[in-house]
Protein backbone atom coordinates (compact mmCIF):
# COMPACT_ATOMS: atom_id res chain seq x y z
CA UNK A 1 0.00 0.00 0.00
CA UNK A 2 2.12 2.81 -1.23
CA UNK A 3 1.01 6.23 -0.19
CA UNK A 4 -0.49 8.09 -3.09
CA UNK A 5 1.97 10.38 -4.76
CA UNK A 6 0.97 13.68 -6.23
CA UNK A 7 1.70 14.07 -9.93
CA UNK A 8 4.37 16.51 -10.98
CA UNK A 9 2.06 18.60 -13.08
CA UNK A 10 -1.56 18.66 -12.04
CA UNK A 11 -4.09 18.73 -14.86
CA UNK A 12 -5.39 22.10 -15.96
CA UNK A 13 -9.05 23.09 -15.82
CA UNK A 14 -10.26 19.57 -15.17
CA UNK A 15 -13.94 20.44 -14.62
CA UNK A 16 -14.09 22.47 -17.80
CA UNK A 17 -12.65 19.72 -19.92
CA UNK A 18 -14.72 17.07 -18.21
CA UNK A 19 -17.97 18.87 -18.89
CA UNK A 20 -16.94 19.68 -22.44
CA UNK A 21 -16.04 16.10 -23.23
CA UNK A 22 -19.08 14.76 -21.42
CA UNK A 23 -21.30 17.06 -23.46
CA UNK A 24 -19.63 15.91 -26.67
CA UNK A 25 -20.13 12.30 -25.66
CA UNK A 26 -23.78 12.71 -24.73
CA UNK A 27 -24.60 14.67 -27.87
CA UNK A 28 -22.68 12.13 -29.95
CA UNK A 29 -24.56 9.30 -28.28
CA UNK A 30 -27.90 10.93 -28.97
CA UNK A 31 -26.93 11.43 -32.59
CA UNK A 32 -25.87 7.79 -32.89
CA UNK A 33 -29.29 6.52 -31.97
CA UNK A 34 -31.32 9.10 -33.86
CA UNK A 35 -29.71 9.62 -37.27
CA UNK A 36 -31.36 8.17 -40.34
CA UNK A 37 -28.14 7.75 -42.19
CA UNK A 38 -25.91 5.08 -40.74
CA UNK A 39 -22.76 6.91 -41.84
CA UNK A 40 -23.79 9.95 -39.83
CA UNK A 41 -24.39 7.68 -36.87
CA UNK A 42 -20.95 6.20 -37.30
CA UNK A 43 -19.35 9.63 -37.43
CA UNK A 44 -21.16 10.61 -34.25
CA UNK A 45 -19.98 7.42 -32.60
CA UNK A 46 -16.40 8.15 -33.64
CA UNK A 47 -16.66 11.56 -32.02
CA UNK A 48 -17.99 9.96 -28.87
CA UNK A 49 -15.18 7.42 -28.82
CA UNK A 50 -12.49 10.06 -29.29
CA UNK A 51 -13.97 12.18 -26.52
CA UNK A 52 -13.94 9.11 -24.35
CA UNK A 53 -10.27 8.55 -25.17
CA UNK A 54 -9.64 12.07 -23.92
CA UNK A 55 -11.52 11.24 -20.73
CA UNK A 56 -9.29 8.20 -20.27
CA UNK A 57 -6.31 10.51 -20.47
CA UNK A 58 -7.88 12.64 -17.78
CA UNK A 59 -8.34 9.51 -15.70
CA UNK A 60 -4.61 8.79 -16.03
CA UNK A 61 -5.14 5.78 -18.21
CA UNK A 62 -3.07 6.72 -21.27
CA UNK A 63 -2.61 3.14 -22.42
CA UNK A 64 -6.32 2.50 -22.48
CA UNK A 65 -6.73 5.79 -24.32
CA UNK A 66 -4.21 4.70 -26.93
CA UNK A 67 -5.90 1.34 -27.33
CA UNK A 68 -9.24 3.09 -27.59
CA UNK A 69 -8.00 5.30 -30.44
CA UNK A 70 -6.10 2.64 -32.31
CA UNK A 71 -8.63 -0.16 -31.94
CA UNK A 72 -11.98 1.51 -31.65
CA UNK A 73 -11.67 4.61 -33.77
CA UNK A 74 -9.03 3.31 -36.15
CA UNK A 75 -10.13 -0.31 -36.41
CA UNK A 76 -13.67 -1.14 -35.42
CA UNK A 77 -15.21 2.03 -36.77
CA UNK A 78 -13.42 1.62 -40.08
CA UNK A 79 -14.93 -1.84 -40.24
CA UNK A 80 -18.34 -0.36 -39.52
CA UNK A 81 -17.95 2.29 -42.19
CA UNK A 82 -16.74 -0.31 -44.63
CA UNK A 83 -19.80 -2.48 -44.06
CA UNK A 84 -22.17 0.48 -44.17
CA UNK A 85 -20.75 1.45 -47.53
CA UNK A 86 -21.05 -2.09 -48.81
CA UNK A 87 -24.70 -2.36 -47.90
CA UNK A 88 -25.82 1.24 -48.00
CA UNK A 89 -29.04 1.31 -49.90
CA UNK A 90 -31.05 4.45 -50.30
CA UNK A 91 -34.17 2.54 -49.39
CA UNK A 92 -33.33 2.13 -45.70
CA UNK A 93 -33.28 5.86 -45.18
CA UNK A 94 -36.82 6.29 -46.38
CA UNK A 95 -38.19 3.47 -44.26
CA UNK A 96 -39.46 3.60 -40.73
CA UNK A 97 -36.47 4.06 -38.46
CA UNK A 98 -37.81 2.70 -35.20
CA UNK A 99 -39.29 -0.67 -34.58
CA UNK A 100 -42.78 -1.38 -33.34
CA UNK A 101 -41.90 -1.96 -29.72
CA UNK A 102 -40.09 1.34 -29.34
CA UNK A 103 -42.50 2.42 -26.60
CA UNK A 104 -41.65 -0.65 -24.58
CA UNK A 105 -37.98 0.00 -25.22
CA UNK A 106 -38.20 3.57 -23.98
CA UNK A 107 -40.10 2.41 -20.94
CA UNK A 108 -37.51 -0.21 -20.13
CA UNK A 109 -34.72 2.30 -20.56
CA UNK A 110 -36.58 4.74 -18.33
CA UNK A 111 -36.89 2.10 -15.66
CA UNK A 112 -33.19 1.40 -15.91
CA UNK A 113 -32.48 5.12 -15.72
CA UNK A 114 -34.62 5.30 -12.58
CA UNK A 115 -32.56 2.53 -11.08
CA UNK A 116 -29.34 4.39 -11.84
CA UNK A 117 -30.65 7.57 -10.30
CA UNK A 118 -31.77 5.65 -7.25
CA UNK A 119 -28.36 4.07 -6.85
CA UNK A 120 -26.33 7.21 -7.33
CA UNK A 121 -28.45 9.35 -5.05
CA UNK A 122 -28.54 6.85 -2.21
CA UNK A 123 -26.73 8.22 0.75
CA UNK A 124 -25.59 6.03 3.52
CA UNK A 125 -24.45 7.88 6.55
CA UNK A 126 -24.31 11.22 4.77
CA UNK A 127 -22.03 9.88 1.99
CA UNK A 128 -22.79 8.90 -1.55
CA UNK A 129 -22.19 5.31 -2.50
CA UNK A 130 -18.98 6.16 -4.33
CA UNK A 131 -16.80 8.74 -2.67
CA UNK A 132 -14.49 10.93 -4.64
CA UNK A 133 -11.37 9.14 -5.78
CA UNK A 134 -8.12 10.44 -4.47
CA UNK A 135 -5.58 11.41 -7.09
CA UNK A 136 -2.70 9.08 -7.23
CA UNK A 137 0.51 8.63 -9.09
CA UNK A 138 2.82 9.67 -11.86
CA UNK A 139 1.47 9.03 -15.33
CA UNK A 140 4.80 7.80 -16.64
CA UNK A 141 4.58 4.21 -15.53
CA UNK A 142 1.06 3.37 -16.56
CA UNK A 143 1.88 1.28 -19.63
CA UNK A 144 4.53 -0.68 -17.82
CA UNK A 145 2.17 -1.38 -14.92
CA UNK A 146 -0.57 -2.59 -17.24
CA UNK A 147 2.00 -4.79 -18.94
CA UNK A 148 3.09 -6.15 -15.56
CA UNK A 149 -0.48 -7.14 -14.76
CA UNK A 150 -0.84 -8.78 -18.15
CA UNK A 151 2.47 -10.46 -18.80
CA UNK A 152 4.80 -10.48 -15.83
CA UNK A 153 5.77 -13.85 -14.44
CA UNK A 154 5.34 -12.76 -10.86
CA UNK A 155 2.53 -10.24 -10.96
CA UNK A 156 0.75 -11.25 -14.15
CA UNK A 157 -2.70 -11.92 -12.76
CA UNK A 158 -4.30 -11.79 -16.18
CA UNK A 159 -1.88 -13.85 -18.22
CA UNK A 160 -4.30 -16.68 -18.75
CA UNK A 161 -7.16 -14.34 -19.53
CA UNK A 162 -4.96 -12.65 -22.07
CA UNK A 163 -4.29 -15.92 -23.84
CA UNK A 164 -8.00 -16.70 -23.82
CA UNK A 165 -8.67 -13.28 -25.33
CA UNK A 166 -6.28 -14.06 -28.15
CA UNK A 167 -8.16 -17.30 -28.73
CA UNK A 168 -11.40 -15.34 -28.77
CA UNK A 169 -9.98 -13.07 -31.43
CA UNK A 170 -8.89 -16.03 -33.51
CA UNK A 171 -12.37 -17.51 -33.31
CA UNK A 172 -13.83 -14.14 -34.23
CA UNK A 173 -11.57 -13.84 -37.25
CA UNK A 174 -12.54 -17.27 -38.51
CA UNK A 175 -16.18 -16.64 -37.73
CA UNK A 176 -16.22 -13.33 -39.57
CA UNK A 177 -14.55 -14.83 -42.61
CA UNK A 178 -16.93 -17.78 -42.66
CA UNK A 179 -19.95 -15.54 -42.27
CA UNK A 180 -18.98 -12.98 -44.87
CA UNK A 181 -17.70 -15.30 -47.54
CA UNK A 182 -20.01 -15.99 -50.42
CA UNK A 183 -18.88 -19.50 -51.14
CA UNK A 184 -16.77 -21.38 -48.67
Amino acid at each position, binding site marked *: MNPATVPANPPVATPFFFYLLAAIMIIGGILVITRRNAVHSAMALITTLLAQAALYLMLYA*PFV*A*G*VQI*ILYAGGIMVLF*LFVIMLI*SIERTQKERQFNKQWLVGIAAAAALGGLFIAVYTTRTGGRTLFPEGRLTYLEGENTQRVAALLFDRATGTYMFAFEIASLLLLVAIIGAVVMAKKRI
Partner: protein
Amino acid sequence: MHGAIQYILSYLESNQTPGAAGNVFWATVYILLVFVGLSIAVIAMNWLERKILAHMQVRLGPMRVGPHGLLQPIADALKLLLKEDIIPAEADKIVFWVAPFIVVLAAFTVFVVVPFGPTHAITDMNIGVLFMLGVSSLSVLGIVTAGWASNSHYPLIGALRSSAQMVSYEVAMGLAVVSVILMTSLNETSTGTLSMIGIVQSQLAQREWFIFKFFPLGLIGFFIFAVAMVAETNRAPFDLPEAESELTAGFHTEYSGFRWSLFFLAEYSAMIAVSSIAVTLWLGGWLRPFPNALPGSTWELVFSLIPGFTFLFLAGMTFYSTARMPKHPLFRVQTIGLGGFGALLALVGLILFIPGVRVRVQDIFWFSAKVAGFMYLYIWYRGTFPRYRFDQLMKVGWKVLLPTGLALLILTALVAMRTELLADLRGAWRP
Protein backbone atom coordinates in the same frame (compact mmCIF):
# COMPACT_ATOMS: atom_id res chain seq x y z
CA MET B 1 2.54 40.28 -14.50
CA HIS B 2 5.72 39.32 -12.77
CA GLY B 3 4.25 35.93 -12.07
CA ALA B 4 3.47 35.44 -15.73
CA ILE B 5 7.01 36.28 -16.77
CA GLN B 6 8.28 34.01 -14.05
CA TYR B 7 6.01 31.28 -15.41
CA ILE B 8 7.36 31.78 -18.92
CA LEU B 9 11.00 31.96 -17.90
CA SER B 10 10.84 29.07 -15.45
CA TYR B 11 10.48 26.63 -18.31
CA LEU B 12 13.80 27.65 -19.86
CA GLU B 13 15.65 26.26 -16.87
CA SER B 14 13.74 23.00 -16.79
CA ASN B 15 15.01 20.05 -18.72
CA GLN B 16 11.70 18.78 -19.99
CA THR B 17 9.30 19.11 -22.86
CA PRO B 18 6.71 21.80 -22.26
CA GLY B 19 4.02 19.16 -22.07
CA ALA B 20 5.85 17.25 -19.38
CA ALA B 21 6.66 20.44 -17.54
CA GLY B 22 3.02 21.41 -17.74
CA ASN B 23 3.85 24.82 -19.13
CA VAL B 24 0.88 25.93 -21.21
CA PHE B 25 2.59 28.99 -22.65
CA TRP B 26 5.55 27.13 -24.05
CA ALA B 27 3.37 24.29 -25.20
CA THR B 28 1.39 26.79 -27.26
CA VAL B 29 4.59 28.28 -28.62
CA TYR B 30 5.83 24.84 -29.58
CA ILE B 31 2.54 23.96 -31.20
CA LEU B 32 2.69 27.12 -33.28
CA LEU B 33 6.31 26.46 -34.16
CA VAL B 34 5.57 22.92 -35.23
CA PHE B 35 2.57 24.07 -37.22
CA VAL B 36 4.51 26.79 -39.00
CA GLY B 37 7.50 24.54 -39.54
CA LEU B 38 5.27 21.84 -40.94
CA SER B 39 3.56 24.23 -43.31
CA ILE B 40 6.94 25.47 -44.53
CA ALA B 41 8.11 21.90 -44.88
CA VAL B 42 5.06 20.99 -46.95
CA ILE B 43 5.58 24.01 -49.18
CA ALA B 44 9.28 23.23 -49.59
CA MET B 45 8.45 19.59 -50.19
CA ASN B 46 5.99 20.55 -52.91
CA TRP B 47 8.65 22.57 -54.71
CA LEU B 48 11.39 20.03 -54.16
CA GLU B 49 9.27 17.13 -55.30
CA ARG B 50 8.46 18.88 -58.55
CA LYS B 51 12.05 19.88 -59.14
CA ILE B 52 13.61 16.56 -58.22
CA LEU B 53 11.04 14.59 -60.16
CA ALA B 54 11.53 16.92 -63.11
CA HIS B 55 15.27 16.44 -63.08
CA MET B 56 14.82 12.69 -62.87
CA GLN B 57 12.63 12.97 -65.94
CA VAL B 58 14.98 15.12 -68.00
CA ARG B 59 12.93 18.28 -67.70
CA LEU B 60 13.24 21.44 -65.70
CA GLY B 61 10.04 21.57 -63.70
CA PRO B 62 8.56 24.88 -62.64
CA MET B 63 10.72 27.74 -63.91
CA ARG B 64 8.35 30.63 -64.48
CA VAL B 65 6.98 31.74 -61.13
CA GLY B 66 9.96 33.21 -59.37
CA PRO B 67 13.54 32.19 -60.00
CA HIS B 68 13.68 28.44 -60.61
CA GLY B 69 10.00 28.31 -59.77
CA LEU B 70 10.61 29.07 -56.12
CA LEU B 71 7.31 30.88 -55.76
CA GLN B 72 5.36 28.17 -57.53
CA PRO B 73 3.95 26.58 -54.35
CA ILE B 74 2.70 29.96 -53.21
CA ALA B 75 1.10 30.59 -56.58
CA ASP B 76 -0.50 27.16 -56.40
CA ALA B 77 -1.79 27.77 -52.92
CA LEU B 78 -3.30 31.06 -54.05
CA LYS B 79 -4.91 29.37 -57.01
CA LEU B 80 -6.36 26.64 -54.84
CA LEU B 81 -7.75 29.12 -52.35
CA LEU B 82 -9.35 31.25 -55.04
CA LYS B 83 -10.77 28.31 -56.92
CA GLU B 84 -14.47 27.63 -56.78
CA ASP B 85 -15.28 25.22 -54.04
CA ILE B 86 -17.57 22.69 -55.62
CA ILE B 87 -19.80 20.44 -53.59
CA PRO B 88 -21.58 17.98 -55.87
CA ALA B 89 -25.37 18.24 -55.73
CA GLU B 90 -25.82 14.60 -54.81
CA ALA B 91 -23.09 14.61 -52.20
CA ASP B 92 -23.72 14.25 -48.52
CA LYS B 93 -22.94 17.85 -47.64
CA ILE B 94 -22.01 17.56 -43.98
CA VAL B 95 -19.80 14.53 -44.38
CA PHE B 96 -18.27 15.96 -47.54
CA TRP B 97 -17.45 19.07 -45.56
CA VAL B 98 -16.06 17.29 -42.52
CA ALA B 99 -13.96 14.61 -44.24
CA PRO B 100 -10.93 16.74 -45.28
CA PHE B 101 -10.72 18.17 -41.79
CA ILE B 102 -10.55 14.71 -40.26
CA VAL B 103 -7.64 13.87 -42.51
CA VAL B 104 -5.81 17.10 -41.76
CA LEU B 105 -6.44 16.86 -38.03
CA ALA B 106 -5.17 13.31 -37.94
CA ALA B 107 -2.08 14.24 -39.92
CA PHE B 108 -1.23 17.24 -37.76
CA THR B 109 -2.11 15.86 -34.34
CA VAL B 110 0.59 13.19 -34.51
CA PHE B 111 3.23 15.89 -34.32
CA VAL B 112 2.33 16.42 -30.67
CA VAL B 113 4.70 13.63 -29.71
CA VAL B 114 7.35 13.86 -32.42
CA PRO B 115 10.64 14.51 -30.65
CA PHE B 116 12.82 16.95 -32.56
CA GLY B 117 15.25 16.90 -29.69
CA PRO B 118 15.48 15.72 -26.09
CA THR B 119 13.33 18.66 -25.03
CA HIS B 120 12.07 19.78 -28.39
CA ALA B 121 8.73 18.09 -28.48
CA ILE B 122 5.34 19.47 -27.61
CA THR B 123 4.96 16.74 -25.07
CA ASP B 124 6.33 13.36 -24.29
CA MET B 125 3.59 10.83 -23.86
CA ASN B 126 3.94 7.58 -22.08
CA ILE B 127 2.20 6.00 -25.07
CA GLY B 128 4.02 8.01 -27.72
CA VAL B 129 4.33 5.42 -30.49
CA LEU B 130 0.90 4.02 -29.83
CA PHE B 131 -0.50 7.54 -30.02
CA MET B 132 1.23 8.24 -33.30
CA LEU B 133 0.09 5.02 -34.92
CA GLY B 134 -3.42 5.42 -33.59
CA VAL B 135 -3.91 9.00 -34.58
CA SER B 136 -2.35 8.57 -38.00
CA SER B 137 -4.66 5.62 -38.55
CA LEU B 138 -7.58 7.98 -37.99
CA SER B 139 -6.92 9.59 -41.36
CA VAL B 140 -8.39 6.51 -42.99
CA LEU B 141 -11.74 7.56 -41.54
CA GLY B 142 -11.50 10.85 -43.37
CA ILE B 143 -10.58 9.11 -46.60
CA VAL B 144 -13.41 6.61 -46.37
CA THR B 145 -15.99 9.25 -45.55
CA ALA B 146 -14.67 11.53 -48.30
CA GLY B 147 -15.09 8.77 -50.85
CA TRP B 148 -18.50 7.89 -49.57
CA ALA B 149 -19.78 11.44 -49.33
CA SER B 150 -18.85 12.20 -52.93
CA ASN B 151 -21.60 9.80 -53.97
CA SER B 152 -19.77 8.73 -57.07
CA HIS B 153 -18.28 5.47 -58.23
CA TYR B 154 -14.62 6.30 -58.59
CA PRO B 155 -14.21 8.01 -55.22
CA LEU B 156 -16.05 5.16 -53.52
CA ILE B 157 -13.80 2.53 -55.08
CA GLY B 158 -10.80 4.67 -54.19
CA ALA B 159 -11.99 4.99 -50.63
CA LEU B 160 -12.66 1.28 -50.23
CA ARG B 161 -9.28 0.49 -51.72
CA SER B 162 -7.45 2.92 -49.52
CA SER B 163 -9.16 1.82 -46.33
CA ALA B 164 -8.39 -1.81 -47.08
CA GLN B 165 -4.83 -0.87 -47.94
CA MET B 166 -4.20 1.27 -44.89
CA VAL B 167 -5.76 -1.18 -42.47
CA SER B 168 -3.74 -4.06 -43.94
CA TYR B 169 -0.42 -2.31 -43.81
CA GLU B 170 -1.02 -1.02 -40.31
CA VAL B 171 -0.72 -4.60 -39.12
CA ALA B 172 2.73 -5.11 -40.57
CA MET B 173 3.71 -1.65 -39.41
CA GLY B 174 2.61 -2.43 -35.88
CA LEU B 175 4.62 -5.65 -35.80
CA ALA B 176 7.76 -3.82 -36.88
CA VAL B 177 7.16 -1.20 -34.21
CA VAL B 178 6.65 -3.83 -31.53
CA SER B 179 10.02 -5.37 -32.35
CA VAL B 180 11.58 -2.00 -31.58
CA ILE B 181 9.66 -1.72 -28.33
CA LEU B 182 11.14 -5.10 -27.42
CA MET B 183 14.60 -3.74 -28.11
CA THR B 184 14.04 -0.79 -25.79
CA SER B 185 13.49 -3.14 -22.89
CA LEU B 186 17.07 -4.43 -23.02
CA ASN B 187 18.34 -2.57 -19.98
CA GLU B 188 19.01 -3.28 -16.33
CA THR B 189 15.40 -2.94 -15.27
CA SER B 190 14.19 -4.70 -18.44
CA THR B 191 11.43 -2.15 -18.75
CA GLY B 192 10.72 -1.01 -22.26
CA THR B 193 9.11 2.24 -23.23
CA LEU B 194 6.61 3.50 -25.77
CA SER B 195 7.62 7.11 -25.33
CA MET B 196 9.23 8.59 -28.41
CA ILE B 197 11.89 10.36 -26.39
CA GLY B 198 12.46 7.24 -24.34
CA ILE B 199 13.06 5.19 -27.47
CA VAL B 200 15.76 7.54 -28.71
CA GLN B 201 17.35 7.68 -25.30
CA SER B 202 17.46 3.92 -25.09
CA GLN B 203 19.23 3.88 -28.48
CA LEU B 204 21.76 6.26 -26.99
CA ALA B 205 22.07 4.08 -23.91
CA GLN B 206 22.50 0.91 -25.97
CA ARG B 207 25.10 2.64 -28.08
CA GLU B 208 23.58 1.79 -31.41
CA TRP B 209 20.71 2.74 -33.68
CA PHE B 210 18.03 0.09 -33.68
CA ILE B 211 18.46 -0.37 -37.42
CA PHE B 212 21.80 -2.06 -36.61
CA LYS B 213 20.57 -3.87 -33.52
CA PHE B 214 20.79 -7.66 -33.78
CA PHE B 215 21.86 -7.33 -37.38
CA PRO B 216 19.96 -8.06 -39.59
CA LEU B 217 16.83 -8.13 -37.43
CA GLY B 218 16.69 -4.38 -36.92
CA LEU B 219 17.28 -3.84 -40.61
CA ILE B 220 14.43 -6.17 -41.54
CA GLY B 221 12.10 -4.40 -39.15
CA PHE B 222 13.12 -1.08 -40.62
CA PHE B 223 12.54 -2.41 -44.11
CA ILE B 224 9.06 -3.65 -43.25
CA PHE B 225 8.23 -0.29 -41.77
CA ALA B 226 9.70 1.57 -44.72
CA VAL B 227 7.53 -0.36 -47.15
CA ALA B 228 4.44 -0.18 -44.99
CA MET B 229 4.77 3.54 -44.46
CA VAL B 230 4.74 4.20 -48.20
CA ALA B 231 1.54 2.18 -48.46
CA GLU B 232 0.16 3.91 -45.39
CA THR B 233 0.57 7.33 -46.98
CA ASN B 234 -0.84 6.23 -50.34
CA ARG B 235 2.26 7.16 -52.26
CA ALA B 236 3.81 5.57 -55.34
CA PRO B 237 4.19 2.64 -55.92
CA PHE B 238 1.24 2.04 -53.61
CA ASP B 239 -0.80 5.02 -54.75
CA LEU B 240 -3.76 2.91 -55.81
CA PRO B 241 -6.38 4.98 -53.98
CA GLU B 242 -5.53 7.85 -56.26
CA ALA B 243 -4.27 5.92 -59.27
CA GLU B 244 -4.99 8.53 -61.87
CA SER B 245 -4.97 6.13 -64.78
CA GLU B 246 -7.62 3.94 -63.19
CA LEU B 247 -9.68 5.99 -60.79
CA THR B 248 -9.03 9.50 -62.11
CA ALA B 249 -8.10 10.80 -58.66
CA GLY B 250 -9.48 8.25 -56.24
CA PHE B 251 -11.21 9.41 -53.12
CA HIS B 252 -10.69 13.11 -53.77
CA THR B 253 -11.96 13.11 -57.34
CA GLU B 254 -14.91 15.33 -56.47
CA TYR B 255 -12.95 17.71 -54.30
CA SER B 256 -11.63 20.99 -55.52
CA GLY B 257 -10.04 24.18 -54.31
CA PHE B 258 -9.47 24.60 -50.62
CA ARG B 259 -10.80 21.20 -49.59
CA TRP B 260 -8.59 19.46 -52.11
CA SER B 261 -5.60 21.38 -50.81
CA LEU B 262 -6.41 20.09 -47.34
CA PHE B 263 -6.02 16.54 -48.62
CA PHE B 264 -2.78 17.55 -50.24
CA LEU B 265 -1.54 19.12 -47.02
CA ALA B 266 -2.55 16.04 -45.07
CA GLU B 267 -0.80 13.70 -47.46
CA TYR B 268 2.48 15.52 -47.15
CA SER B 269 2.33 16.00 -43.41
CA ALA B 270 1.43 12.34 -43.04
CA MET B 271 4.53 11.49 -45.06
CA ILE B 272 6.60 13.61 -42.72
CA ALA B 273 4.89 12.04 -39.72
CA VAL B 274 5.55 8.43 -40.65
CA SER B 275 9.09 9.31 -41.65
CA SER B 276 9.53 10.84 -38.20
CA ILE B 277 8.38 7.58 -36.65
CA ALA B 278 10.88 5.65 -38.72
CA VAL B 279 13.66 8.07 -37.86
CA THR B 280 12.84 7.96 -34.17
CA LEU B 281 12.50 4.22 -33.97
CA TRP B 282 15.38 3.07 -36.13
CA LEU B 283 17.66 5.91 -37.05
CA GLY B 284 18.36 7.39 -33.66
CA GLY B 285 15.97 10.33 -33.86
CA TRP B 286 17.76 13.55 -33.08
CA LEU B 287 21.09 11.88 -32.28
CA ARG B 288 24.00 13.08 -34.35
CA PRO B 289 26.02 10.43 -36.18
CA PHE B 290 28.40 8.44 -33.95
CA PRO B 291 27.48 9.94 -30.55
CA ASN B 292 29.33 7.10 -28.83
CA ALA B 293 32.14 6.29 -31.25
CA LEU B 294 33.26 9.90 -31.54
CA PRO B 295 32.61 11.43 -28.13
CA GLY B 296 34.23 14.47 -26.61
CA SER B 297 33.77 18.18 -26.89
CA THR B 298 35.89 18.47 -30.06
CA TRP B 299 33.68 16.14 -32.02
CA GLU B 300 30.66 17.74 -30.39
CA LEU B 301 31.83 21.05 -31.80
CA VAL B 302 32.58 19.63 -35.24
CA PHE B 303 29.17 18.05 -35.57
CA SER B 304 27.39 21.10 -34.25
CA LEU B 305 29.01 23.15 -37.00
CA ILE B 306 27.55 20.95 -39.74
CA PRO B 307 24.07 22.57 -39.76
CA GLY B 308 25.57 25.98 -40.40
CA PHE B 309 27.83 24.68 -43.13
CA THR B 310 24.92 22.86 -44.76
CA PHE B 311 23.01 26.09 -45.04
CA LEU B 312 26.13 27.90 -46.27
CA PHE B 313 26.55 25.20 -48.90
CA LEU B 314 22.95 25.63 -50.02
CA ALA B 315 23.52 29.38 -50.10
CA GLY B 316 26.63 28.85 -52.19
CA MET B 317 24.67 26.75 -54.67
CA THR B 318 22.03 29.43 -54.85
CA PHE B 319 24.66 32.10 -55.49
CA TYR B 320 26.13 29.92 -58.22
CA SER B 321 22.69 29.65 -59.82
CA THR B 322 22.30 33.40 -59.47
CA ALA B 323 25.55 33.92 -61.33
CA ARG B 324 24.31 31.61 -64.06
CA MET B 325 21.00 33.42 -64.52
CA PRO B 326 20.56 34.95 -67.99
CA LYS B 327 21.88 38.48 -68.09
CA HIS B 328 18.86 39.76 -69.97
CA PRO B 329 17.08 42.68 -68.26
CA LEU B 330 13.89 40.61 -68.24
CA PHE B 331 15.48 38.36 -65.66
CA ARG B 332 16.70 41.16 -63.42
CA VAL B 333 13.96 40.79 -60.81
CA GLN B 334 14.37 37.03 -60.76
CA THR B 335 18.12 37.29 -60.41
CA ILE B 336 17.76 39.70 -57.49
CA GLY B 337 15.15 37.42 -55.94
CA LEU B 338 17.37 34.37 -56.22
CA GLY B 339 20.29 36.31 -54.80
CA GLY B 340 18.07 37.42 -51.94
CA PHE B 341 17.05 33.83 -51.32
CA GLY B 342 20.69 32.82 -51.25
CA ALA B 343 21.44 35.63 -48.83
CA LEU B 344 18.58 34.41 -46.62
CA LEU B 345 20.02 30.90 -46.62
CA ALA B 346 23.46 32.27 -45.83
CA LEU B 347 22.00 34.32 -42.99
CA VAL B 348 20.31 31.26 -41.55
CA GLY B 349 23.61 29.42 -41.88
CA LEU B 350 25.44 32.18 -40.03
CA ILE B 351 22.81 32.30 -37.30
CA LEU B 352 23.31 28.59 -36.85
CA PHE B 353 26.96 29.26 -35.99
CA ILE B 354 26.05 31.32 -32.90
CA PRO B 355 27.00 29.06 -30.00
CA GLY B 356 23.75 29.48 -28.08
CA VAL B 357 21.64 28.71 -31.14
CA ARG B 358 23.99 26.02 -32.37
CA VAL B 359 23.63 23.81 -29.35
CA ARG B 360 19.87 24.13 -29.20
CA VAL B 361 19.23 23.66 -32.89
CA GLN B 362 21.56 20.87 -33.88
CA ASP B 363 19.18 18.16 -32.63
CA ILE B 364 16.43 19.57 -34.78
CA PHE B 365 18.81 19.71 -37.71
CA TRP B 366 19.81 16.07 -37.47
CA PHE B 367 16.23 14.99 -37.07
CA SER B 368 15.10 17.03 -40.07
CA ALA B 369 18.02 15.84 -42.15
CA LYS B 370 17.08 12.22 -41.54
CA VAL B 371 13.43 12.93 -42.32
CA ALA B 372 14.53 14.76 -45.47
CA GLY B 373 16.33 11.61 -46.56
CA PHE B 374 13.02 9.76 -46.37
CA MET B 375 11.30 12.51 -48.28
CA TYR B 376 13.85 12.10 -51.04
CA LEU B 377 13.18 8.36 -51.06
CA TYR B 378 9.48 9.06 -51.52
CA ILE B 379 10.21 11.18 -54.56
CA TRP B 380 12.65 8.64 -55.88
CA TYR B 381 10.08 5.85 -55.64
CA ARG B 382 7.62 7.99 -57.49
CA GLY B 383 10.06 8.59 -60.29
CA THR B 384 11.09 4.98 -60.65
CA PHE B 385 8.34 2.52 -59.90
CA PRO B 386 5.22 1.54 -61.76
CA ARG B 387 2.12 1.08 -59.68
CA TYR B 388 1.14 -2.17 -58.00
CA ARG B 389 -2.16 -3.77 -58.80
CA PHE B 390 -4.57 -4.05 -55.91
CA ASP B 391 -4.40 -7.80 -55.44
CA GLN B 392 -0.60 -7.66 -55.66
CA LEU B 393 -0.60 -4.92 -53.07
CA MET B 394 -2.68 -7.05 -50.72
CA LYS B 395 -0.41 -9.99 -51.44
CA VAL B 396 2.64 -7.99 -50.47
CA GLY B 397 0.95 -6.79 -47.30
CA TRP B 398 -0.53 -10.00 -46.01
CA LYS B 399 1.66 -12.70 -47.49
CA VAL B 400 5.06 -11.10 -47.37
CA LEU B 401 5.25 -8.32 -44.81
CA LEU B 402 2.97 -9.81 -42.18
CA PRO B 403 4.66 -13.24 -41.88
CA THR B 404 8.06 -11.57 -42.06
CA GLY B 405 7.00 -9.21 -39.30
CA LEU B 406 5.75 -12.06 -37.12
CA ALA B 407 8.91 -14.05 -37.64
CA LEU B 408 10.93 -10.95 -36.93
CA LEU B 409 9.09 -10.35 -33.68
CA ILE B 410 9.63 -13.89 -32.47
CA LEU B 411 13.26 -13.89 -33.52
CA THR B 412 13.89 -10.56 -31.84
CA ALA B 413 12.35 -11.82 -28.65
CA LEU B 414 14.43 -15.02 -28.79
CA VAL B 415 17.65 -13.16 -29.45
CA ALA B 416 16.93 -10.55 -26.82
CA MET B 417 16.17 -13.16 -24.19
CA ARG B 418 18.89 -15.58 -25.24
CA THR B 419 20.86 -15.49 -21.96
CA GLU B 420 17.78 -16.06 -19.84
CA LEU B 421 16.57 -18.79 -22.13
CA LEU B 422 19.91 -20.54 -22.10
CA ALA B 423 20.05 -20.28 -18.34
CA ASP B 424 16.58 -21.77 -18.12
CA LEU B 425 17.57 -24.63 -20.37
CA ARG B 426 20.71 -25.33 -18.38
CA GLY B 427 18.71 -25.25 -15.20
CA ALA B 428 16.29 -27.74 -16.64
CA TRP B 429 19.04 -30.19 -17.52
CA ARG B 430 20.85 -29.92 -14.26
CA PRO B 431 20.05 -32.98 -12.13
